């Protein structure tokens, strides 16, 4: 691997040799060793090494044969939610990593991990060093239910629960108590179904995935037998998609526990639905009809028309023992269908509550505009509002919805807009920009050491090695210090 990189490095220098004299001037000022020059090529900085960052980089490299693209990532490891979000039993989704790896290894692309943008380096500093900066830092927070009892023990956000089973370093200590028989998940998106499936899947199936060993051990001792996935609106508004519902239906030894009353009037509405919604609804109705078998040891079910109002505490006042739900009726139609409380309440007994009502982006730096209501960087087609040379893509641009393909398309769009702006002179390419030269020097003075892509590949190799002995594709490292030690070894 090292050799490959070296060869590409040399090829790069041969290609650019005619520009060396100009490049040299800019480089000597920076005191660096890279041979790439910005004499005529745009230097673009991408903040965040998830799908949005990699797809934006891919399109920029393709559209501008002279562009140099550097990706800065907070963690020592790349790929964002493909590594820390996508469920361990969906390895095929993670095939996109092969394309991302090719982008990272592209001769005009560099990956700098272990750089917390906004803290280690400011956006202003990046904007000074690059012709353009693209924000692709995703959505690392979660929406809060804003109900009493949300902080009780036994209540988790799906973001943290997913981070725990997927080995996100900041969630490694989560250690959820799975001694309760019933778990309630609030929200009915695909993340909710990922969590439900992980809670109900046989451990024998999970142990061959890249789920972390410590979460596997906790799941092996789980008493959870019943998982209810609660939504505020009705079956026709459900946010998850059919593949994920089919996976629930197909779970071994697990039946469906649904309320037929939730589906009143749905059969009549079917014929007017577009095909995707129609098939999804039909599948749910089939599950309602089939119900559960006496042989089924476990069950899952949707509960509709219910909004969380309070987490009920047990005698100790600290532990959740149930959730109080407000019953709703629907008002409006189509996309605008709203849940309105009827005034009736219902209590559900459960010792594990997972709130899966969506992720949320944070502001990265006080100089960058942020829309607190929508929790995104305000933008027009990826151009950040009122800030020349600043762009955004992915969840921080659109909000925290959409599959990888959605993120891909919107990242391609942002890259195209950026290239158009370069061609139209909106982004000034007439001045030389030092790019990574300046930034890595700055980081050095601040005691921040980066993890380059070949160094990530050492972590990758170590994880694959540890996984192999366990019969898994990889065993993720959970500790940032350990990652760094291996990367720099």
């Amino acid at each position: 691997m090292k050799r490959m990189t070296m060869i590409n490095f040399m090829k790069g220098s041969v290609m650019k040799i005619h520009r060396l004299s100009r490049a040299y001037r800019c480089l000597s000022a920076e005191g660096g060793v890279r041979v790439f020059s910005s004499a005529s090529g745009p230097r673009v900085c991408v903040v965040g090494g998830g799908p949005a960052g990699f797809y934006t980089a891919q399109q920029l490299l393709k559209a501008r044969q002279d562009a140099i693209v550097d990706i800065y990532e907070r963690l020592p490891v790349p790929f964002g939610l493909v590594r820390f979000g996508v469920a361990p039993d969906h390895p095929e989704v993670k095939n996109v990593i092969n394309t991302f790896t090719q982008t990272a290894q592209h001769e005009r692309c560099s990956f700098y991990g272990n750089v917390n943008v906004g803290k280690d380096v400011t956006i202003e500093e990046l904007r000074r060093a690059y012709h353009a900066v693209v924000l692709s830092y995703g959505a690392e927070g979660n929406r809060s239910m804003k109900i009493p009892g949300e902080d009780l023990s036994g209540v988790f956000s799906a973001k943290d629960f997913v981070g725990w089973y997927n080995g996100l370093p900041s969630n490694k200590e989560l250690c959820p108590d799975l001694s309760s028989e019933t778990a309630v998940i609030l929200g009915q998106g695909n993340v909710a179904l990922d969590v439900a499936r992980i809670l109900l899947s046989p451990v024998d199936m999970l142990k061959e995935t890249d789920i972390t060993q410590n979460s596997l051990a906790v799941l092996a001792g789980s008493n959870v037998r019943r998982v209810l996935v609660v939504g505020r609106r009705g079956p026709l508004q459900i946010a998850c998609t059919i593949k994920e519902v089919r996976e629930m239906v197909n779970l071994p030894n697990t039946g469906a526990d649904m309320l037929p009353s939730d589906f009143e009037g749905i059969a009549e509405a079917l014929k007017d639905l577009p095909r995707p919604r129609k098939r999804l609804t039909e599948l749910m109705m089939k599950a309602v009809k089939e119900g559960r078998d006496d042989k089924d040891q476990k069950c899952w079910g949707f509960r509709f028309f219910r909004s969380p109002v309070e987490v009920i505490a047990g005698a100790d006042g600290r532990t959740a023992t149930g959730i109080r739900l407000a019953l709703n009726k629907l008002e409006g139609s189509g996309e605008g269908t709203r849940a309105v409380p009827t005034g009736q309440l219902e209590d559900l007994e459960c010792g594990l509550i997972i709130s899966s009502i969506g992720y949320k982006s944070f502001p990265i730096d006080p100089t960058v505009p942020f829309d607190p209501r929508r929790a995104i960087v305000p933008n027009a087609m990826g151009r950040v509002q009122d800030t020349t040379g600043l762009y955004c893509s992915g969840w921080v641009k659109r909000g925290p919805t959409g599959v990888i393909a959605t993120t891909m398309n919107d990242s391609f769009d942002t890259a195209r807009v950026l290239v158009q702006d370069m061609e139209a002179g909106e982004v000034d390419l007439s001045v030389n920009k030092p790019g990574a030269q300046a930034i890595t020097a700055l980081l050095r003075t601040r005691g921040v050491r980066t993890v380059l892509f070949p160094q990530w590949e050492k972590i990758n190799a170590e994880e694959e090695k540890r996984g192999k002995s366990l019969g898994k594709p990889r065993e993720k490292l959970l500790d940032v210090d350990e990652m760094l030690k291996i990367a720099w070894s």
Partner: protein
Amino acid sequence: MASRMCVQVLARSSLALVCHPGSTRPHLRFLHTAPKLCSQSQQNGSSDSKVLVHFVNQSGVKSSVFVTEGESLLDVVIKKNLDISGFGACEGTLACSTCHLIFEESVYDKLEPIVDEETDMLDLAYGLTKTSRLGCQVTVEHWMDGMTVRVPHEINDQRGKQEAVSSK
């Protein structure tokens, strides 16, 4: 290199099929599920490469290629390095719908029946039509000779809007 075999029918732009001219490393994608990237027989144009398939990409650019029977349309796009942005993100494992293609009705009607799992993914695709299928699930057969498959125009429409803005 792979595109040497392709008959280029350039409807709108002569840039089709050129693979990263400034790049010293061809930006080929690896198909880990079918790791026979650009086999020799392909490049030498062996006689079993004889089914002609026309692809129209997002930008309306048509490329025509001779294909070996038994390959999936995803294999073809990768092997011939056709310029279709983001095609086949999950590498043919029915987990993404980025390999969405639109068929002519007469061809669509004769395709192998679709399974639920393919429809599940297809239902999430952009610009779904009545004759849509996922390219990774359709295998090229002799009778398809001369067919045209299209990538939906969504992204192109979006770009059109942006071009209109920037040309002001």
